[in-house]
């Protein structure tokens, strides 16, 4: 009961939110700002409607008129979506930076409350602004309903989606603000976070689209238009698709607004907990919660990939038909690429350590199960393995049920998964290797990422140049171990073994360095 009260206390009656509300409502600032917004919105609606009305003519069919009116309504929705994309990311993040610059952040963070309480307060303040923004646009939206371009249900659904998407975009800026603590990098970083996040979601949509279009997602085969699960967080996607339902599995559909609430909540949870985790010590509730939510999201992404497998490979109760082998492999690889990218983000966050960044990052060993959720460096590898199991496990389950189109496909899929496991181990080795030579976790992480990018780009370019010089197009590029493409599955497995060996050498080298480091000899650390 206490825990429930504490959870709701974060969001309702939050002291920071109350303080912000008092400040926001003081004087005429808010009144002037929102009146200006309303005037601009009405002017926009008048001009847009004028444009649409001028295209109407006598004798136009009802369907054509309906379409024109719908375009008016959609234009308004585009405007609102754009306003939310522009405003939401800076609402909470700018408050964090302002608090940091004025010094008040230290004062509030040393109160006997978790950092998530502080972030929740700022997010609730931001949410209030978004509600104002949407509430003030109701008169204009009602125009669309009265004229016949949309129904009140459409408006309600769209506003719910906008509100929760805005909440998610707002929270994307929070970890950026916590890391940079400067206004300009925070604002730019927040927009970049949205662009990158949208890019990843767009990639997922692209992966899912073939399955959707071929009737494997239950979409066009039913009378209700659907959209993929992760698409609900992609800006504009919901307006473009105008789908009322979301496909969770090929046979299970839920309303799009509900899917948005679900996915936003997960996104908000990981952003807020991740930010709190950055500011917390090893083993704190924020760190443990972040790691658990990270695994839940990994599992969700893993399930999504497996959903593709189940539909594409024609197992697990899929409604669609099996497609060709090349299509299957391409789609499977795309899904795995996404999981691999998530894996890299996880490894980059949990593996690097530093001797001088405090006890949270002090290297306390190589492999520890009990530290996996606590956030100590010894738990980095264990946590990465858990994440790998979540990301690739569900697909593996489908793949190894033995119901494949051909044995070749099974081996190919196994080879690709094996390659990803080896690549994850190489990344582990790289971040362990860059850690003892760096003063801080941040610099170890940056150099590790640069190293990985350099390795991927460098190896590809080098082999391509050799190919070019010897006029053997693509022959040598195929042996590049940094990607899982090869002539045969055995070739992919061999590449994985190469990566694992390099990773092992790096881990070994870094361990030698770690054990000999003078700071390991200080009293209290001898046993580490």
């Amino acid at each position, binding site marked *: 009961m206490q825990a429930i009260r504490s959870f709701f206390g974060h969001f309702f009656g939050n002291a920071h939110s109350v*303080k912000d509300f008092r400040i926001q409502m003081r004087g005429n600032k808010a009144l002037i700002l929102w009146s200006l917004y309303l005037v601009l919105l009405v002017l926009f609606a008048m001009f847009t409607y004028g444009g649409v009305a001028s295209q109407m003519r006598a004798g136009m069919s009802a369907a054509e008129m309906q379409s024109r009116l719908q375009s008016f309504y959609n234009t308004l929705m585009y405007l609102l979506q754009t306003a939310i994309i522009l405003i939401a990311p800076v609402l909470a993040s700018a408050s964090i930076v302002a608090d940091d610059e004025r010094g008040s952040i230290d*004062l509030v963070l040393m109160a006997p409350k978790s950092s998530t309480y502080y972030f929740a307060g700022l997010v609730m303040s931001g949410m209030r602004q978004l509600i104002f923004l949407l509430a003030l646009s109701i008169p204009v939206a009602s125009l669309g309903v009265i004229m016949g371009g949309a129904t009140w249900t459409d408006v309600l659904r769209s506003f719910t989606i906008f509100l929760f998407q805005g909440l998610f975009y707002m929270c994307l800026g929070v970890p950026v603000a916590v890391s940079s603590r400067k206004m300009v990098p925070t604002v730019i970083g927040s927009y970049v976070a949205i662009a990158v996040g949208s890019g990843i979601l767009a990639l997922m949509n692209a992966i899912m689209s073939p399955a959707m279009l071929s009737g494997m997602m239950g979409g066009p085969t039913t009378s209700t238009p659907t959209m993929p699960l992760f698409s609900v967080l992609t800006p504009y996607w919901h307006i473009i698709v105008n789908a009322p339902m979301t496909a969770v599995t090929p046979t299970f559909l839920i309303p799009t607004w509900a899917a948005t609430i679900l996915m936003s909540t997960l996104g908000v949870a990981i952003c807020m907990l991740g930010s709190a985790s950055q500011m917390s010590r090893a083993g704190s509730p924020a760190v443990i919660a972040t790691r658990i939510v990270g695994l839940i999201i990994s599992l969700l992404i893993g399930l999504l990939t497996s959903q593709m497998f189940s539909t594409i490979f024609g197992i697990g109760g899929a409604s669609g038909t099996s497609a060709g082998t090349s299509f299957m492999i391409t789609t499977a690889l795309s899904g795995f690429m996404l999981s691999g990218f998530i894996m890299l983000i996880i490894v980059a966050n949990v593996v690097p350590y530093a001797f001088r960044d405090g006890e949270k990052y002090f290297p306390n060993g190589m492999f520890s199960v009990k530290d996996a959720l606590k956030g100590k460096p010894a738990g980095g590898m264990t946590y990465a393995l858990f994440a790998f199991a979540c990301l690739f496990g569900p697909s593996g389950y489908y793949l190894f049920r033995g119901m494949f189109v051909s044995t070749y496909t099974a081996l190919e899929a196994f080879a690709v998964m094996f390659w990803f496991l080896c690549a994850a181990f190489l990344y582990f080795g790289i971040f362990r290797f860059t850690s003892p030579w760096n003063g801080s976790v941040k610099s170890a992480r940056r150099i590790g990422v640069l190293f990985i990018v350099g390795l991927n780009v460098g190896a590809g370019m080098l082999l391509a140049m050799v190919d070019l010089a010897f006029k053997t197009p693509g022959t040598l590029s195929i042996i590049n171990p940094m990607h899982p493409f090869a002539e045969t599955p055995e070739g992919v497995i061999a590449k994985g073994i190469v990566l694992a060996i390099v990773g092992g050498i790096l881990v070994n080298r870094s361990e030698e360095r770690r054990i000999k480091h003078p700071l390991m000899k200080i009293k209290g650390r001898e046993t580490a």
Partner: protein
Amino acid sequence: MLVVDGLRKEYGQFTAVDGVSFQLKPGDIMGFIGSNGAGKTTTIKMLATLLEPTLGRATLNDVPLTEGLIDARKLIGYMPDFFGLYEDIRVWEYLELFASIYGVPKTERPGVIDEVLELTDLGFKKDAFAKSLSRGMQQRLCLARCLVHDPDLLLLDEPASGLDPRARAELKELVAELGRMGKIVIVSSHILPELADFCNVVGIIERGQLLAFGSVEEIISGIEQRRMIEVKVLERANEASMFLHGKEGVVSTFLMGASTLKVEFEGSMESQAQLLAEMIQGGFLITEFRVDAADLEDLFMKVTTGALN
């Protein structure tokens, strides 16, 4: 009881605080002295739970300050060397924010706010905007903020910097009152005279190391075996000087006039008392017998000179 045991903080290659240890009991007011960059603020931030020590531990009434932070933070009031006041917020709203996040029940908040405002003499500014207050009043408001949850330990980092003499005097009185209320107060400063009046304990930190800790007298006797005693006699100063030669602990004597002599003395307080008794028994009419007291500034210079060298 505050027990600090071997606190150490490293930033990259730099060790900001190196094994600081001390103990304070309720009612103690500790002057934490050190030059800029000596490690005062880092130590205070570690005690305030804002920084994680690289090594070491601190407990307040057996509650660890370096782990299990939520419980520890209820016991601490921290006033940094900046105010961190929000724009457009009234004095009572500011205090209510902190009373709320420190878990003061809603029904008790108005009473608590009135009490701390009265203690800090800001009751008449309750509805004023925090930013409109004078610097001294803002400082007192920050102190009031630290007191809303009735902490056992108060950490005041450079509280008097930038204050005018009157505001400083008021602040000193307020801190002394907090000590009388049984709170442990740690006041850091590099302006030494402001601490001398109300601190019963002094800690001198330089280059991250706590060079001395204790009362001013204890530190003097710890670092300075020889001290200068000024003796005034009604008459026969020259004879008194001769009398003192060869007595236990007397290193040398200097005649400073017809009735004054200075004695360079090396010995315990008992030996010093014995010396006075012998002079009286020797028939000298003594009007004054006092040790030339080193002030806090002298003490700081003496303690830190060795470290700097």
